[in-house]
């Protein structure tokens, strides 16, 4: 059963678009607050971890300042979290791609340095210093 709010959202494409924007912002903010609660961290602690002011954190979390992806990454880094991004087709039972492929982990893989085969190491050919 729908209510008057859903009825409003269904009245126009512009309304539905605005709801989609607010839904993402609410979901991100609520997820951050949940993580802060779990970690026992308040806004001042988060600001310290990010190297910004508490006011900056308040503005970002309230939506009065736009949260960039870089800021979101900084928040996650400060909270020791790994953000994951996932999209799904609406009104479709099947995922957009096969499971696993539409989940993008932003945490970098562990660094494994191996020189490629065509990498020249000229110092090997230098004559030893006399």
């Amino acid at each position, binding site marked *: *059963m729908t209510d*008057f*709010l859903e009825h409003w959202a269904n009245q126009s494409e512009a309304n539905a678009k605005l709801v989609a924007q607010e*839904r993402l912002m*609410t*979901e991100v903010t609520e997820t951050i607050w949940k993580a802060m609660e779990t970690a026992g961290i308040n806004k001042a602690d988060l600001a310290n971890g990010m190297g910004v002011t508490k006011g900056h954190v308040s503005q970002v979390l*309230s939506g009065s300042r736009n949260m960039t992806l870089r800021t979101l990454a900084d928040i996650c880094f400060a909270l020791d979290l790994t953000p994951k991004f996932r999209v799904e087709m609406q009104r479709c039972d099947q995922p957009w791609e096969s499971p696993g492929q539409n989940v993008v982990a932003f945490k970098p893989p562990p660094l494994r340095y191996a020189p490629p085969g065509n990498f020249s190491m000229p110092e090997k050919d230098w004559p030893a210093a006399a």
Partner: protein
Amino acid sequence: MTREYRGTRLTIRYCEQPPEGVEPDDWIPPSWQKALQHIPAPKHPSCWAKMLVRRERLANEGQLRSPDHWNTEGTLPDGKHFYAIKADRLRAYGWFSGRHKRVFYISHFACKKGQKLAQEDTNQVIKNWRLIEEG
């Protein structure tokens, strides 16, 4: 037919209901319309969208965590609290029902003008709480 929103964890039910003979889809709670009058018209769509997604999140998660989305307000006659879903200056005052399991009742909507909870909003919530929980 009672107007309500069913989420995975909670049902959000409105104390204000459309009168007999009014098509429910054409009906908007009077308190919501009144509260919106205090908000500049260009901000109305944003308020609608914010209130929609926050009540959706409450219904699906069972709680809202951000103090920009949710606040503990006054005290009910049974000693428990009532709460507010927040969307800018708009509030949806309500309580978790003890009589109807997994139902969050929205007493009414209001535009908060100052820092303090208005006495008339507290009175309205308590009046509705008595009707639902004790009636």
